């Protein structure tokens, strides 16, 4: 094995660019290790542990880029290729191009901005957010790894200043019709969403769009906002903002079930909004006593339907042909061997995974999940499936040093092959999240692996059923129809909603029929 190390002094690249290039180059050349990092103290230690020369690294700082390669191929051109990729791949400064400002303050001299989107490494996000808030700007923190203390401090600061601080994590929003970070291109309309869940917000907005409704605003407040520590500060601010927003006629709140104290606070805040509200606590208890202007639901699909009903939209004509899908499911199940009993859901979207888990629980038993709330359902080793299993591949343990699977679905490919070799596996569920921020062709990068997966199963005389859900709209840049028809052409059963996908998979393994 050969170890190559190169420091590019004073060249900063964002981690998304670097991770994307690492993945690409590693896939192309088959090196044992391709790592491209900014030389932070932590990253330098990691490189030294991998056996790279510490003397070469000691002078490098967080503004210096380091390329480390371990490969059997004594070919130093690889390093040059990587240099070209990272310089050309990201939209870095090019010759003959005017420069971008370096700080928020200097950017304000160029643009009268109202919002700052922050996707720096988490350790730096709080500082930038504070600089933005103190200058009267709203903030969307896409970064993860922001401490709870920082989140609370910043949210209180934002509240005091009457500003919105969206995120951290679950970075998604649609503001005045513009999709920010991970968001789908949906029709504008009168339904306002506020969510502590990224893909939950995306799925509800997509379903509303497909059923003929539209979105006024969608505010993602971050996955931890309804925790005891944060206490729903921004959920309440978001609800208030939607209450005041003239374009919003119906409000949908989306979250995992919060702590009881926080729930009480949130429900109290709903009273004064003067607009109908749909509360969706995914996989929560069904709260009774619905008033006329308040409905509780526990699924994303239910949230979309309830919101449309408040809006007075008749969706009966849009309901798809259940029977057609049930027949397809039955056909799939007939191709299976008796040993093939289990569902394996491999999800990019965390909330999509949670919704599927909840809906499957009622149909098949037992269900396991790497991010299950209930201890009894927790998958012991997230790297190895067993039984009916739902895996959130966007969970931190899968994304250390790798892009989120919505940005780069490659993270899921190896797992697909593992599941395909398991004789007990009957059906895979795959979600494909389209929209801004997501991969340009998530289905396209997955299909070759699906072909191989089916060959692996076929070698042992098995058929592998695949159910997919494409969370996207006809307006999304990836093209909803195009993605779906590619899947259909490969014999993948393409569901009409995330909930529907779970339902179909259950039917294939004999649950719910």
């Amino acid at each position, binding site marked *: 094995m050969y170890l190559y190390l190169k420091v590019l002094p004073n060249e900063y690249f964002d981690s998304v660019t670097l991770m994307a290039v690492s993945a690409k180059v590693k896939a192309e050349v088959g090196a044992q290790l391709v790592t491209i990092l900014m030389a932070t103290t932590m990253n330098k230690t990691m490189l030294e542990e991998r056996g790279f020369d510490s003397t070469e690294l000691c002078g490098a700082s967080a503004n210096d880029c380091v390329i480390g390669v371990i490969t059997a191929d004594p070919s130093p051109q690889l390093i040059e290729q990587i240099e070209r990729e990272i310089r050309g791949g990201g939209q870095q400064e090019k010759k003959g191009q005017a420069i971008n400002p370096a700080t928020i303050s200097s950017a304000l001299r160029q643009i009268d*901005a*109202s919002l700052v989107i922050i996707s720096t490494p988490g350790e730096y996000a709080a500082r930038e957010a504070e600089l933005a808030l103190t200058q009267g700007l709203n903030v969307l923190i896409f970064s993860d790894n922001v401490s709870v203390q920082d989140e609370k401090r910043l949210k209180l600061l934002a509240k005091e200043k009457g500003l919105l601080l969206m995120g951290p994590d679950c970075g998604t929003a649609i503001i005045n019709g513009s999709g920010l970070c991970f968001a789908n291109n949906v029709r504008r309309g009168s339904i306002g969403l506020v969510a502590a869940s990224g893909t939950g917000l995306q799925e509800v907005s997509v379903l509303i769009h497909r059923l003929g409704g539209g979105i006024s605003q969608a505010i993602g407040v971050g996955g931890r906002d309804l925790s005891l520590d944060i206490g729903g500060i921004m959920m309440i601010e978001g609800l208030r903002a939607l209450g005041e927003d003239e*374009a919003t006629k119906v409000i949908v709140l989306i979250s995992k079930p919060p702590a009881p104290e926080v729930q009480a606070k949130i429900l109290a805040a709903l009273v004064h909004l003067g607009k109908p509200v749909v509360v969706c606590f995914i996989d929560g208890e069904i709260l009774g006593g619905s008033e006329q202007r308040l409905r509780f639901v526990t699924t994303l699909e239910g949230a979309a339907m309830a919101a449309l009903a408040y809006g007075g939209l008749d969706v009966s004509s849009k309901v798809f042909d259940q029977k057609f899908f049930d027949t397809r499911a039955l056909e799939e199940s007939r191709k299976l061997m008796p040993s093939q009993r289990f569902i394996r859901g491999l999800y990019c979207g965390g909330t999509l995974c949670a919704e599927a888990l909840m809906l499957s629980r009622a149909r098949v038993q037992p269900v396991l999940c790497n991010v299950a709330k209930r201890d009894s359902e927790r998958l012991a080793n997230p790297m190895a499936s067993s039984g009916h299993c739902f895996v959130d591949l966007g969970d931190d343990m899968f994304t250390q040093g790798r892009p989120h699977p919505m940005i780069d679905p490659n993270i899921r490919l190896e797992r697909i092959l593992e599941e395909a070799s398991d004789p007990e596996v009957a059906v895979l569920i795959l979600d494909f999240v389209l929209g*801004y921020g997501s991969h340009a062709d998530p289905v396209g990068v997955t299909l070759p692996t699906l072909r191989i997966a089916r060959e692996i199963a076929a070698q042992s005389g098995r058929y592998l059923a695949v159910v997919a859900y494409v969370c996207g709209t006809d307006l999304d840049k990836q093209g909803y129809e195009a993605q779906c028809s590619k899947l259909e052409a490969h014999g993948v059963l393409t569901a009409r909603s995330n909930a529907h996908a779970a339902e179909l998979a259950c039917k294939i393994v004999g649950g719910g029929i």
Partner: protein
Amino acid sequence: MGRHKLLGQTLKIINVGTPTFTADLRLQGVPHVHLDWRPPAEGDAELVAVLARLMEHRAEIKSANDEVLRRVKTATGRLLGVKPAREVILGLSDMTILHAGPPVDWADMAGPMRGAIMGALVYEGWAKGKDEAQSIAASGGVRFAPCHEYGAVGPMAGIISPSMPVHVLCDYTHGNYAYCTVNEGLGKVLRYGAYSAEVLGRLKWIEQGFAPVLDQALALAGGIDVGGIIAQALHMGDECHNRNKAAGSLFLREIMGPVLRTDFPLEQKQAVLEFIKANDHYFLNLSMPYCKLTLQAGHGVPKASLVTIMARNGFEFGIKISSSDQWFTGPANYITGLLFPGYSKDDAAPDIGDSAITETMGIGGFAMGGAPAIVKFVGGSVQDALNYSLRMHEICHGENAAFTIPALDFKPTPLGIDIIKVVETGILPIINTGMAHKEPGVGQVGAGLVSPPFKCFKDALVALAQDT
């Protein structure tokens, strides 16, 4: 600062982080600016904490910095005469030699500086030859001090000894003076460490043949406004550090008549004018003391975080900030650029000279957008030259309306390097400079770009935080 309402208003966005999101904003036609973001303070968490502490004093620091720039902008710079250093530089006693950069011991001095000091010892008659000069210098027989501590500046080795004539510039507003020697030209010259008989002979001619004529001419002219020449030269392709062709011509135009009106013999007057004409860098030794003089006015404002001196001695780079008299130093860097034929980068000495005072004042590398010919030294494009100038605004507190860049729609040059902004952004001042041969007496081997070490700014910031 007012609150920006988000919903229902025109959405305008600053994107900090991954360019993917910027691409999507472009796709949707949302007005946005993408930041060229880097980890603050080069990712040093302790230093980020220091920045946060200083943020709490942001209002006081800002008003102190405003005051520094007010003083700098109201300073004037008039060239009044050319006098022997010992007559005008206060406290320049015998057996004292001034040098470029922060303080440095003989043992640590770069080759060119040692050579120039030996030359000066012989020139002053304090030593008979090279060997005696070396033993005097090494044994503490002569006192060394930075030019900057005497209101003076010197290019490259920057050596000033008492008999050398110096340009005398005056700031009438603040009553300050600044001094700089007469530029000897290119090739074998003292400032690059050459000390041959030819070099010393030229210095003697400058002292006895040149200076008296120019001094009388300046008196006849009633002085010459150096700032005015810089302002015009910036519109003619100079940045007044590494390129002084236009400024030199303008100066010659001003001084020609007065020189002819002096009562010296015609041949001597011709020789004086010929000397100025033949030296592309004559004006460097005027732009430098002009910058020194104006920045001197801004020095000494408590709590200010702006840089008033950047200087190098070939061993270390040193800076001073307005609110402190301490030098903050770090190892001098090597210059990146173009070498003259026959030299390799192993021949070059580290960064040397007081000429970075021009960048401190917002010209030189900071005004490269007005002097695109300079980027040829680093193989860059005209846009690169403009970008260097734009980039320097990121680390400066304000702008200098006196100096503008036509190619940037007459945007004023950046002014007042703020150590807080340098540390925060990791953007270092860009300096256009010449490259000296590491051995004494060889001369210039190339030219290019260089930056100060980050350490200077880091140390200055920590000290400022302690005092605030």
